[in-house]
């Protein structure tokens, strides 16, 4: 159960004094605005909320939110967030970062966090470029795109984060676009409330290294989930996950499943372990001292 603030907070209460280093026009401004509003919408107690990131432009986000925040190392936002949540399940824990952080150097953690259904929310701000290092090809950069490290055009196929999340067993998958703050607020708030691993793929264009055309390209293709779409139907979610981004980029809640969360299962393990009354340090010490009991047949 999430800790709520005593009085109703507004988005301003979640804004830290630290000034963003992001470039003008960066999509991440739209994301951080959505984070403020989502936290305010749920009225979460900032002192019981923790936002963790790795390294990258978008990984600076925790510093701009007035909660407990951790700007850690490249790729490790998810396991650090997992350790925090497991250690103190009363906290609301978000992991945030970019496509390089989450789908290159930290891919394995995404895969397994989804599989183990750890109760955290992961927001990936996908700009399809390494912005902090000033314009290198990323795992979601479209094929043929010219970057500083794909000078003849990207020869690799981009990764599909939503399809991957579905394959890995994520129980909440949503997609938004940084320019659509209202949609982002709604989806981030729902993700936080979801018991289990929730993933928000947040397309957040980089005007500096991908140019205005990236923003326009996304804007032309985004659409809402179609009329009658049911996010609990696997085949419908699969159809969206497989859609060609050259045609459509569907925003909204794309998939939701119910499965016991990691925290619920860990609590069950503790129950099993202590079913016979638990243990003391003295019990454990005694278990190491050989005891052959009373003399019987051995006489």
């Amino acid at each position: 159960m999430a800790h709520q603030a005593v009085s109703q907070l507004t988005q301003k209460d979640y804004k830290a004094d630290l000034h963003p280093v992001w470039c003008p026009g960066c999509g991440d401004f739209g994301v951080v605005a959505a984070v403020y509003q989502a936290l305010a919408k749920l009225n979460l107690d900032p002192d019981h909320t923790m936002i963790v990131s790795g390294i990258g432009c978008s990984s600076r986000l925790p510093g701009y939110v007035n909660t407990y925040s951790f700007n850690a190392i490249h790729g490790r936002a998810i396991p650090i967030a997992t350790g925090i949540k497991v250690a103190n399940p009363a906290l609301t824990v978000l992991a945030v970062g970019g496509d390089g952080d989450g789908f290159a150097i930290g891919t394995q953690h995404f895969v397994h966090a989804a599989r183990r259904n750890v109760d955290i929310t992961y927001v990936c701000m996908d700009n399809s470029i390494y912005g902090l290092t000033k314009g290198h090809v990323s795992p979601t950069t479209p094929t043929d795109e010219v970057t500083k490290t794909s000078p003849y055009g990207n020869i690799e196929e981009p990764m599909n984060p939503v399809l991957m999340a579905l394959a890995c067993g994520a129980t909440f998958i949503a997609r938004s676009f940084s320019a659509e703050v209202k949609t982002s607020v709604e989806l981030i708030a729902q993700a936080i409330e979801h018991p289990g691993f929730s993933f928000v793929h947040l397309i957040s264009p980089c005007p500096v290294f991908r140019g205005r055309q990236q923003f326009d390209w996304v804007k032309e293709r985004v659409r809402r989930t179609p009329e009658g779409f049911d996010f609990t139907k696997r085949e419908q979610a699969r159809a969206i996950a497989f859609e060609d981004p050259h045609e459509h980029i569907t925003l909204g809640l794309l998939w939701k499943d119910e499965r016991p969360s990691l925290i619920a299962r860990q609590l069950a393990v503790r129950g099993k372990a202590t079913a016979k009354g638990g243990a003391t340090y003295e019990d454990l010490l005694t278990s190491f001292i050989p005891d052959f009991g009373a003399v019987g047949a051995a006489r």
Partner: protein
Amino acid sequence: MSRNDLIVGIAGAGGDGVVSAGELLIQVGAHEGLFGMLVKSFGPQIRGGESSVRVRLSSKRVLSQGDDLDVLIAFNWADYGRFRTELVPGAETLIFVDEMDQTPPEQIPLPESRKAAVIRVPFEKLAVEKGGSALAKNIVAVGVLAGALNLPRDGFARAIEKKFGRKGEQVVAANIAALDAGVAVAAEHHHAAAHVTVKEGEARMVISGNDAFAFGSLVAGCRFFAGYPITPQSEVMEWLGKELPKFGGTMMQPEDELASISMAIGATTAGVKALTASSGPGISLKLEALGLASMAELPLVVLNVQRVGPSTGIPTKTEQADLLQGIYGTHGDAPKVVLSTTDVDDCFSVAVDAFNIAEEYQTPVLVLSDQAIGHRTDAIPPFDLAAVKVVNRRLATEAELAAVDPHHGFKRYAMTDGGVSPMTVPGQARGNYLMSGLEHDERGWPVSGAAVHQQMSEKRARKLQPVPDQYAHLTLVAGDPKADVAVVAWGAAKGAVLEAVERLKADGLRVRAVIPRLLSPFPVERIERELEGKKAIHVVEVSFSGQFHTYLRSVLRPELAARLVRHSRAGAAPLGVGEVCGFLRPQAQPMAAD
């Protein structure tokens, strides 16, 4: 003459019950109040291959696995052959082999001089006849050992009763008959010199180094462990996986070493004492995150159960070659504390020290254990739980946080005289802050200026300065303080070194031994004081390049550094007592007439 100290080796095929015979031997010895050490060794097969045990039992504390065997039991020569360098018979060793073995004499893997002395015993035949199954041949062997070495037959009988009790009285009776058959065989082969006199004493505990470290961590308050299976660490996580949930804690086995240390960092960030453990290859992967814990000033304990390197090396064998990685491995100037364990007993107490230091100084603590300690089982006095003192991190109080200026926020990295700043954990009102692997100011905000980086570098280093004095007990000394010759060693080398010093003393030669368990920050003053006036300082270690020697040369005063003599070699074989005596004997001075 009775030595009150004996060493037994047993080797055989998978299914011969070699390991359970060794375990029975040390368990019964411990129950009778003896000290002991059990070292197991296996062939390369995943399961079911040849195996050997080496058991030392003594009425005095066992320091090392010793040198030559007193008794050797080989169920066949082919399997013994693989362990011939680990189970070396001496001139007096009683050697038993199963009479079914048909190895031609020229192929028997023994020194020519000892081949004639081999005693052929019908282990398997007796097992079938008396014990009802060939499976009982290890029990016949235990009977032979009990008889040959004057160990109490009744103690083994009781242990057998306990071990097989569930299988019914018939099985118990058959195994006791097998035991007695072995005792009868040994009546003609009593070892004249080697036997122990069992006194009415306190029972010992029987525990492995890895279990002891896990237990010590739990008692120190560790409630979170994340690790990735790796030899020779895995027993630590297996034990904690079973026990932590009983104490409200959690063991996790995530996807890799990076996630393991990252999860531990997360847990400690949330205020729960956390441990991660690995061996060389995994520690290499963890180093980046270890630097994060140093930068973010987080309490964290990391255990490295060292094995032979580099790369995959020899996973099941010992080496002390991760020392410089441990001290310097992280990029940047990343202060941390490095401790070492020197025996099984240490694994418990050093684990407690590690958590206490981590908590008090808000620092990662790396503990270097190694395969030779982690995998061996000792019979030692039970740990004194009442003597354990647990230190917890000092959290900012509610009053302190109430005084925080909301416009500037909580100063997590406030400059203090000692360098340790008040900290908070999530959930503390008004205590939130930005923790970061980026260089930061007092609030945790990222900075890139030279002046702050200099100040923060000083702060992070300064805070660890009191550790050597506060943890002075981590430096061990032994032998004659007036000796001209000193030997300095660390980690698992301690056992053989201390036993060598005792052996030389018995021969009238004086040597001083200095064993630091705190390796960084190094207790320079204390060690220099101990080495003052020594003409030669022998550095004994199991590292091909002599990493400890290199380290000592860099930290000791030049005139002491100039007197360091390096004795180092690659690992796989543990350091032997005779080997160390060989280094020291020509150098050691006879005791003065006084």
